[in-house]
């Protein structure tokens, strides 16, 4: 199954972490991810202070500065994994350094075909 891993950071906790170690750890994780999980893509996003939220209702457009929800943990990036089942996906979430500075939401990708019906 293909899973999208949505990284949510506590931005303050991340900023307080020892940066050099953190990014070295991330480098190793990315290496493992691309070689062992067949992960094709993933991105790190700018912090939520750079976010803009747009909403349209009855012909009117609302443009708000800031993220969709003002919560302690903010969406910070994502990656994909190809996993046999949820346990394998959970293992990748545990390996990701971000799980120590926030949370990782695991979402199965909606597949049109290939899944046993």
């Amino acid at each position, binding site marked *: 199954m293909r899973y999208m891993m949505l990284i949510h950071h506590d931005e303050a906790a991340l900023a307080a972490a020892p940066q050099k170690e953190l990014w070295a750890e991330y480098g190793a994780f990315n290496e493992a991810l691309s070689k062992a999980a067949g992960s094709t893509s993933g991105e790190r996003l700018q912090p939520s202070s750079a976010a803009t939220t747009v909403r349209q209702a009855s012909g009117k457009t609302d443009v708000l500065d800031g993220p969709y929800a003002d919560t302690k943990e903010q969406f910070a990036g994502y990656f994909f994994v190809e996993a046999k089942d949820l346990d394998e996906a959970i293992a990748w979430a545990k390996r990701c350094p971000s799980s120590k500075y926030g949370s990782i939401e695991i979402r*199965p990708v909606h597949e049109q075909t290939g899944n046993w019906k």
Partner: protein
Amino acid sequence: MSDGGEARRAAERVARDSYGRLVAFLSARTRDIAGAEDALADAFATALRLWPVDGVPDNPDAWLLTAARRRQTDALRRRTTRQAGEEHIKMIADEIEAAAEAGGDIPDRRLALMFACAHPAIERGMRAPMILQTVLGLTAIDIAAAFLIPPATMGQRLVRTKTRIKDAGVPFRIPDKEELPERLDAVLEAIYAAYAKGWGEIEDGATSALADEAIWLGRLVVTLLPDEPEAKGMLALMLYTEARRTARRSPDGGYVPLEEQDTSLWDDSLILHAESLLTAANSAGPSGRYQIEAAIQSAHIARRRTGNANWPAIVALYDHLMRFTASPVVALNRAVAQAEIEGPEAALATIAPLADDKRMASYQPYWAARGHLLTRAGKRYDAREAFTMAIGLSTDEAVRRYLVSKRDRLGPLD
């Protein structure tokens, strides 16, 4: 129970056994629990109706398959069938054929199914209901009755959980060695929760039947995981408790606390089975929570032979249990045992810190225990107050009457 009742029960047992194995086999292949249940539902209902009357067929799996196929053909004629049902039935047919050629039964995947139902990604409160439905074929109505939830709500939650298992990719497998203890704990917790539901209410047929089903599941786990001491420990704990079922009520339905129970009413064969399981569990590995709790029961049951519970052992075992769960409930039970050795004042001193614990404020056994200890310490005013709290918090009518009689026995206070 009459002989006819026993036979009916045995036939139902075989039907549930076969049904659970077929559902587990199919869903382990497809992750589609609802589809597997659909394919077999009518055949299973027919088996539950016919087997207790006509007797159990030689090959229950094959019988269910044939009945499911017939139903499928009818549905095809009416063009109302689901693709899933057809595929599921073909899968069982192939497997039963392969098993027959190999001279055995279809592979037993019920443990894998239980691990899926008790996966950490499944809401804790739904794990026991899921196991009861998928492995035993209990209806949402029966499960709802035991869990005090409206049947429609329980039905919806079961459907949602099955969809979640399929869509999230929850695995159907026995976890690896390093993960097994934690994950097995969730399975055992779910089964024990079902047992506790069946033990709590007494007058009610649905719930005491649930206790039987939980014990049956406990036996199944022990059979399928013979090397896991905690599985044996939990089964032993359930059997020790079950052995005292009839003794905990007087002929007129009054509550009888453990210390006052007539030991001749305890079920010897269940106790012997529990003792042998506990011995096997203790020799096989490190002590876990269920083994310790079973050992505490064993020390209580010593009263049957010696006239006295083994209180020093009980206190020591509670100390050991505290290392696993530092819960106030364990501390309270330990203090009650301590009172038997050191007297009520010592026990009251031990539980003094619990008075500040918010969880104890609405915990009925805390106030009942305080009432007993204060009575024995001669503090009648405080005892009266504690019993009054316990009476107000009781949910069981027999327990409430028992506590009222204890309070009345304190006599007039002036």
